[in-house]
């Protein structure tokens, strides 16, 4: 049992994650392009972040003392957008503009267009340096907010990221927490076949980070890890969250072919039904 989050709250967050997954499917069907597996796999963590972990104010996205959530692997932005919409940053209806001309919800997120996304991202490996820069600046001024940086696993193949990891470890940025979506897939196949990342934990430890590993679909475990990180004084912390790509839709789970394509409309109906009936366990009022 967690010391940091009540069982009732966990149940509430799990239900919220299911709603957010439904919005995500609707968002992607409408957009006709975009990534599906990664965003589904991070639905539980983004729900936990926006509805429990982050100290933020959706009505005041530029609040100077807010916690910063940097999304390094910008291509999973549909899940961030869905979580933000549910949290009240903008109307859920706006999710339907994803990737369309004139939208604030660009195919890869842009800081200048949508308040609350913090950084422009997409090119991989560059989020951790920005997160470290914010954390460093905040520490210079004695600010108490925390900086979270969500990363993919495969972007750990990029050199820029390790330069930043070295810097953060050297400077003991204890106000920085990395979150790795360890889902083992990338565009060209499984990470360990394309360019192995393991031993990932040992790599971070050798860069002077504190490392925690969790089940990325266990909200309680994730929240506990985030709280434990706050107590680590001499090091930045990274949480390696083991996730299932496509989590929640049986047809998508573990299939790297779903990395970079959206569901077709008829698939969308089927997937939404799976989510609404909790995989056929209950009846859906939409049927």
């Amino acid at each position, binding site marked *: 049992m967690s010391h940091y989050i009540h069982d009732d709250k966990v149940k509430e967050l799990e239900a919220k994650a299911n709603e957010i997954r439904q919005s995500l499917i609707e968002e992607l069907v409408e957009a006709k392009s975009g990534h599906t597996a990664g965003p589904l796999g991070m639905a539980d963590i983004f729900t936990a972040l926006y509805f429990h972990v982050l100290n933020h104010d959706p009505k005041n996205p530029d609040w100077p003392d807010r916690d910063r959530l940097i999304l390094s692997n910008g291509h999973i932005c549909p899940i961030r957008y869905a979580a933000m919409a549910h949290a009240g940053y903008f109307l859920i209806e706006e999710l339907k503009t994803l990737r369309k001309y004139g939208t604030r919800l660009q195919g890869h997120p*842009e*800081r*200048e267009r949508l308040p609350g996304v*913090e*950084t*422009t*991202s*997409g*090119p991989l*490996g*560059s*989020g*951790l*340096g*920005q*997160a*470290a*820069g*914010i*954390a*460093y*600046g*905040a520490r*210079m001024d004695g600010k108490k907010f925390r900086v979270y940086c969500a990363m993919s696993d495969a972007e750990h193949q990029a*050199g*820029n990221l390790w*330069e*930043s990891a*070295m*810097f953060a470890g050297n400077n003991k940025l204890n106000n920085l927490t990395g979150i790795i979506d360890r889902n083992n897939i990338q565009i060209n196949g499984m990470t360990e076949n394309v360019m192995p990342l393991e031993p990932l934990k040992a790599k971070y430890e050798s860069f002077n980070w504190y490392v925690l590993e969790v089940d990325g679909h266990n909200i309680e475990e994730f929240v506990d890890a985030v709280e434990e990180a706050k107590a680590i004084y001499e090091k930045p912390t990274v949480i390696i969250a083991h996730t299932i790509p496509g989590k929640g839709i049986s047809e998508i789970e573990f299939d790297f072919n779903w990395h970079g394509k959206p569901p077709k409309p008829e698939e969308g109906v089927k997937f939404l039904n799976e989510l609404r009936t909790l995989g056929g366990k209950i009846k859906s009022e939409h049927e």
Partner: protein
Amino acid sequence: MNKEVYLIEDLSKAKKVPTRDGYGKGLVDLGEKDDRVVVLCADLAESTRSHWFKEKFPERYIELGVAEQNMATLAAGLANYGKIPFISSYAVFSPGRNNEQIRTTISLNNLPVKICGAHAGISVGPDGATHQALEDIALMRVQPRMTVIVPCDTIEARKATNASVLCCDGPVYLRFGREKSPVFTTEKTPFEIGEAIVLREGKDLTIVGCGALLYNALIAAEELSKEGIEATVINSHTIKPLDVTTILNSVKETKAVVTVEEHQVAGGLGSAVAEALSQHFPAPQEFIGVHDRFGESGEPDELIEAFGMGVKDIKAAVLRVIKRKS
């Protein structure tokens, strides 16, 4: 326009100081004026003169090690938070190696990071081609939101460094040379980002230059004057946004232009001038610069001559362009 207002009295007696010294002094000025200013360096503190800032404001100096990509992304984060970062390295590495990081995390993010490329140009000398940045202006000029400044001497470099904080909410590229170069402007010479300065007026052609080579352009103009050819010389220290009005006003009178820069002729000042003139007032143009080659080892003055950027090369270009006037 009276050139004595703007320049030292006797060009031949110009002292020689590297433009990077002006950068180092400008950083110290800024350190005293603005608490938000932080200086980042990738293991080249002495070479880039950022060590002067480091000595005075150690708590606001950030060491990166040999990691220019992280320097760009870290600076983006610092600026995102509210700092005004200056990132210092050799131009081949920054904005060379970290170009995509500058594009995405600084320019597209629209953040006030100042990118300071030292050791630009062939006059780096003995280090050779790997360390002689000849394409950095082109790289920076094509990024939306980026301001590009190439100071002509250490005094102008100091002014440009100071001005870069006030001028722009977005990113700025500042280009500096390694070698000692003539100091021919004075404290009183005006400097406003985006405003070219007419250093000398003549009716026969317009020379538009930037950086330390402007001195060669001025010497060439003096020598040509003795031969009966009168050149206007414009200091276009800001390449983006280019002061089209000042350049156009002059070329409309002289009807010919020679551009002078220590950079590939593709994509630099010469290209910027040609883009403006072809649109508003097409005129014959000759390009002094590096013509699609890499540099090599040698003494700075020797290389400037060998690569066709000496006084005699500028004079020859002037004669060619005058012949082309219809």
